[in-house]
């Protein structure tokens, strides 16, 4: 094991922060979903890193990562269905213009 654990954790932290910036700064709802995917990937890198460096015999980290995959797939399916339904009704995917509850 030549690579220290800190490097992986730092890459995951950077990926998480890039995804966070995308979520906060995008106007397009699909862009926000892409940012969320990046953040979930960062979480998975952390899980696999902690599995590899702290408890490689039992596979708890990998099992947890598989559940994160499942939840990510469910989340993106529902999220994109919502985006398409909103687009059909309002003809926009810009989140600032989706303000039905304010009217």
């Amino acid at each position, binding site marked *: 094991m030549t690579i220290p654990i800190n490097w992986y954790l730092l890459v995951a932290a950077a990926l998480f922060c890039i995804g966070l910036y995308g979520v906060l700064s995008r106007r397009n709802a699909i862009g926000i979903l892409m940012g969320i995917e990046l953040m979930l990937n960062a979480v998975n890198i952390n899980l696999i890193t902690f599995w590899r460096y702290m408890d490689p015999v039992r596979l708890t980290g990998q099992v947890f990562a598989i559940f994160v995959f499942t939840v990510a797939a469910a989340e993106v399916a529902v999220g994109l269905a*919502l985006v398409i339904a909103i687009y059909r009704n309002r003809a926009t995917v810009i989140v600032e213009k989706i303000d039905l509850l304010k009217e």
Partner: protein
Amino acid sequence: MVPIIIFGLSSLVTLGAALAVVTNKNILHSAFYLVLAFVGVASIYVLLEAPFIAVVQVMIYIGAIAILIVFAIMLTRRILSEDLIQRNSQWILSAMGAMGLFLVLGWIVYSVKWPVVQQAVPEDTITILGQELLGTYVVPFEIASVLLLAALVGSIIIGRERE
């Protein structure tokens, strides 16, 4: 030496592609950079000796999620995205917030002494993984499958055309 070079390359690809995802003006190009970022993350998994997770990453994230996102962009692109402003008015604030969070996380990563153990990965991880999933973690596994089913039924109901 070789693992360090591979690690550097894959993390550079991942982070560069992720930056392109969040800053590109064309949302469709962002989706393609997202695929590149997923490939980089998959290579990091290979480096961490988790080949099954890497294959699942390629199959689910690239094969399903990225394709789904590209489809959604194609279906909602009346507005040809190039001339549309893709970031909102608070982007400087959110960039500063993300940078601050990164500094905090980096400080935590370097100030904690991680209890690293020097152990080798077991020979046959995929067999053990399958036994764990259908043994110790069988209840969460079934709940996850019900969640996936409910999400797919829900997305069909939300997305279908009302007559």
